């Protein structure tokens, strides 16, 4: 007997779109059809005027725990996530201590099991301490820690030979290496995109080449080693072109772009407000346009948030001293719906099933909303009111931090409900715990 | 003073509309001539007398006065100008005139300074001028010559030489220029 019914919406998933209600029984989808009968005592979530989709998947989130709980915790970050329609987050390993050992990865997993409102998939570092010198124990982390994505995010691996070895080793394990592409010698001293704006504002710049050179190197190494490489937060037109050409040549690489890289430019830095400081930096209009084209034509496989909380004090420093990073989980979907001129299926592909595929599949995630067998996986869905308008406010939000560059922006599209593994975790825009 | 600011700062004071002319240019000439004689009489000659015109309305009148004095006594007196913009007590409310220059050609210690202004109203500009003068030395005496005294004093200031006493309402305005002295009002 159904105990939860999502009523009155239109289901959009990898197989297409249809008007249907979705009925759950003990966490699993049992019925997907129009006008379901609602048994007495069942919870009803009104999805009138809404899209019902598989929950969103973020391949790039900073939860800050362990080490920087003043900015965010696994609990507060995951709450922010479910409010934004996310059911699955890949946690970045630049915590303190770094997620480069089985102990820390297991700690994060356990903590998530206790506190997180949605599923947390820990990633791990490629190198010990993300120091770029010695490989982390990838086999152990994969076998026992179940890690499938390795990244030194926050940094890129600078040493070419070390990156080659990491790729060869990763290929043997069948895991994915995700790269934060930044040649530190070229970027050194920079705090914003190097261009007309940095010249005017007198802030040292990071040239596009600092990113493109590493993208180019990793493509060559991936060709050499056959490893599976995922490019994080692409930000330049040049990077998009490189990935496009590589895919056209048949290479199995994937790429993500963040919401801020398709909605904001380096002109924002004119206010010298460190809320606009991020790595890779906000780039030019031409770069933003190229990212949007890349999202539309399949060059870029996923929209990621790179949700990077920082305390208010940290972001009140002089621009060049402030840490880079912006929030993203609660605004990503709305920004994608408002700013990209793409049909909802394409947006959901970029934010749900394609990221899930990059990770390599997730238990309790299905790109198709369909009835399952008796002991089938529990399902996670989000219900999106695609016409609701709302304005990002200066306080509010579930994150512990508030470093969002979108304060005051009016967006169209809002998550009404989120069901995580069969449990309604967000009802009418309110987190249930 | 109100007239001066209003005339040269159009966005702030509005436009002066004359209602009646109270002195013709000839009247002004005659008044200056008379005042010159009064200065000589009062000071028993022109020894150590210095003429200083207040920016900007007092400057042309100071020149006229100095010329008349020269004609009468055949003596060329030191002639200076004083801008009191930086001494006003109503700072923050009055704009500064870039072309208003302070030029005091002699040390004022021991001198008899005749300050010259076009209209005497509340007395605040003269107070500021007295303040400013002390930065140039300690005069033996300071005397005040004005073309029009329109009343409404707010400080204990009184003129020594007056061209014309003109009772006015507070909301009226007095304009002294090369075409005479007019009484009227300022309208936005």
């Amino acid at each position: 007997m159904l105990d939860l019914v999502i009523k009155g919406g239109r289901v959009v998933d990898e197989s297409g779109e249809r008007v249907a209600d979705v009925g759950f029984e003990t966490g699993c989808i049992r019925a997907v059809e129009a006008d379901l009968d609602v048994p007495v005592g069942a919870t009803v979530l009104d999805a009138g005027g809404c899209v019902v989709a598989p929950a969103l998947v973020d391949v790039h989130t900073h939860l800050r725990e362990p080490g920087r709980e003043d900015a965010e915790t696994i609990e507060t970050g995951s709450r922010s996530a479910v409010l934004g329609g996310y059911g699955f987050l890949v946690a970045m390993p630049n915590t303190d201590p770094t997620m480069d050992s089985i102990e820390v990865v297991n700690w994060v997993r356990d903590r998530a099991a206790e506190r997180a409102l949605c599923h947390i998939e820990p990633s791990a570092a490629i190198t010990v301490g993300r120091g770029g010198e010695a490989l982390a124990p990838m086999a152990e982390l994969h076998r026992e820690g179940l890690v499938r994505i390795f990244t030194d995010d926050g940094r890129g691996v600078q040493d070419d030979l070390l990156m080659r070895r990491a790729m060869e080793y990763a290929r043997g394990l069948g895991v994915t290496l995700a790269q934060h592409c930044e040649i530190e010698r070229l970027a050194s001293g920079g705090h914003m995109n190097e261009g007309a704006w940095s010249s005017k504002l007198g802030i040292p710049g990071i040239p596009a080449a600092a990113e493109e050179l590493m993208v180019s190197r990793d493509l060559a190494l991936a060709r050499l080693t056959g490893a599976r490489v995922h490019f994080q937060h692409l930000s330049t037109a040049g990077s998009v072109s490189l990935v496009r050409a590589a895919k056209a040549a048949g290479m199995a690489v994937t790429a993500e772009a963040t919401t801020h890289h398709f909605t904001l430019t380096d002109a924002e830095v004119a206010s010298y407000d460190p809320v606009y400081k991020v790595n890779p930096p906000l780039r030019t209009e031409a770069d933003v346009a190229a990212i949007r084209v890349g999202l539309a034509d399949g060059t870029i496989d996923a929209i990621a948030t790179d949700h990077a909380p920082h305390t208010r004090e940290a972001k009140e420093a002089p621009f060049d001293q402030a840490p880079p990073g912006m929030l993203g989980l609660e605004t990503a979907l709305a920004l994608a719906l408002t700013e990209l001129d793409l049909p909802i299926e394409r947006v959901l592909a970029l934010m749900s099933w394609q990221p899930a595929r990059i990770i390599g599949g997730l238990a309790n995630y299905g790109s198709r909303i369909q009835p399952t067998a008796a002991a089938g996986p529990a399902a996670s869905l989000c219900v999106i009111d695609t016409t609701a308008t709302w304005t990002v406010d200066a306080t509010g939000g579930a994150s512990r931090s508030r470093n969002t560059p979108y304060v005051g922006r009016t967006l169209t599209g809002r998550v009404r409900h989120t069901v995580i593994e069969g449990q309604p975790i967000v009802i009418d825009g309110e987190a249930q715990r | 003073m109100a007239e001066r600011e209003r005339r040269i700062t159009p966005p702030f004071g509005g436009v002066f509309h004359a209602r009646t002319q109270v002195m013709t240019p000839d009247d002004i000439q005659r008044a200056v001539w008379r005042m010159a004689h009064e200065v000589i009489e009062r000071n028993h000659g022109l020894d150590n007398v210095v003429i200083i015109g207040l920016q900007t309305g007092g400057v042309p009148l100071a020149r006229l006065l100095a010329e008349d004095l020269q004609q009468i006594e055949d003596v060329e007196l030191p002639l200076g100008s004083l801008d009191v913009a930086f001494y006003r007590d109503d700072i923050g409310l009055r704009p500064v005139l870039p072309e208003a220059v302070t030029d005091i050609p002699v040390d004022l210690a021991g001198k008899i300074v005749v300050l010259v202004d076009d209209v005497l109203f509340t007395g605040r500009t003269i107070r500021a001028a007295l303040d400013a003068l002390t930065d140039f030395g300690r005069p033996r005496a300071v005397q005040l010559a004005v073309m029009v005294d329109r009343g409404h004093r707010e400080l204990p200031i009184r003129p020594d030489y007056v061209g014309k006493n003109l009772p006015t309402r507070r909301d009226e305005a007095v304009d002294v220029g090369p075409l005479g002295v007019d009484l009227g009002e300022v309208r936005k």
Partner: protein
Amino acid sequence: MRHLLSIDDLGADGIEEVLSLTDSFVEVSGRAIPKVPALRGKTVVSLFFEDSTRTRLSFETAAKRLGADTMTFSVGTSSVKKGESVRDTVLTIEAMGVDAIVVRHASAGVPVQVARWGTSAVVNAGDGWHEHPTQALLDCYTIRQRLGSLAGRRIAIIGDIKHSRVARSNVLAFAALGAEVTLVAPPTLLPVDIDGWPVVVSHDLDAVLPTCDVAYLLRMQQERMTEALVPTLREYTAEYGLTTERADRLPEAAIVMHPGPMNRGVEIAGEVADRAEATMVEQVRNGVPVRMAVLFLLLGSGSEMFGTRQHASAPSGASEPSEASEEETVSA
């Protein structure tokens, strides 16, 4: 005008106002008692995170000559505590009741942030590579003193443009006043993407010198050597230094300027720095009256002059002048 954070805050009209007002303050500075009570009762604070005794003293002298009280927070003393955030320092200072804060910091944009965090008027005394507006103003004043109007004047700014806040402010100021500005530097010392700047760029100093009215030299810092921006200082001097021989080839009436401090023998030959055409001493001397003009405009009665020309982001804060015109405080 609420703040002076960039030359852009002034525009051509604003620059003219400052320069005209400077004449008055030059006169005041020349008096036996070089003081006027224009800013009596106001407090001006120097907040210097980067030590610069010369600039700080210039501002403090300017404030004192206007009758204002001054306070100093400088990184050399213990009042700028290590670890206390800039924002906390600003809030502490404002709690003491100040009217203007003069800020110098090694990071670009700090004056903009200080203006946002506090309520006082803010003057940028130099922020990283970004701007040094009062330097540009005193440079304009000096040029005008020596050569008259800047309109049509050919000004060459020579040296490390990329890292120079003086260059950035000067480009804006000189161009606003109608000068033709040429930047002369090797490509490594020029900012990228400056096609939109109102300048011509040259890498050949010898080609530019014979036709310039002003040769404005920038300091060539020792640190640039380690960043591979020029191979050696010797090469820099050979290519871009104002040597005796180059100075001899300047047009008759041309002047040589430098914001100081100079590296004699590097960007300028020692002997050239002492020639009659070198204006460095006047530049420093003009600094005080120029800064008096700026402080007066921010805190004195000058704000209404700019009432119609305010930035949308900077409310004038001044009462409506029309109400205060005739009646209450009319003087005579």
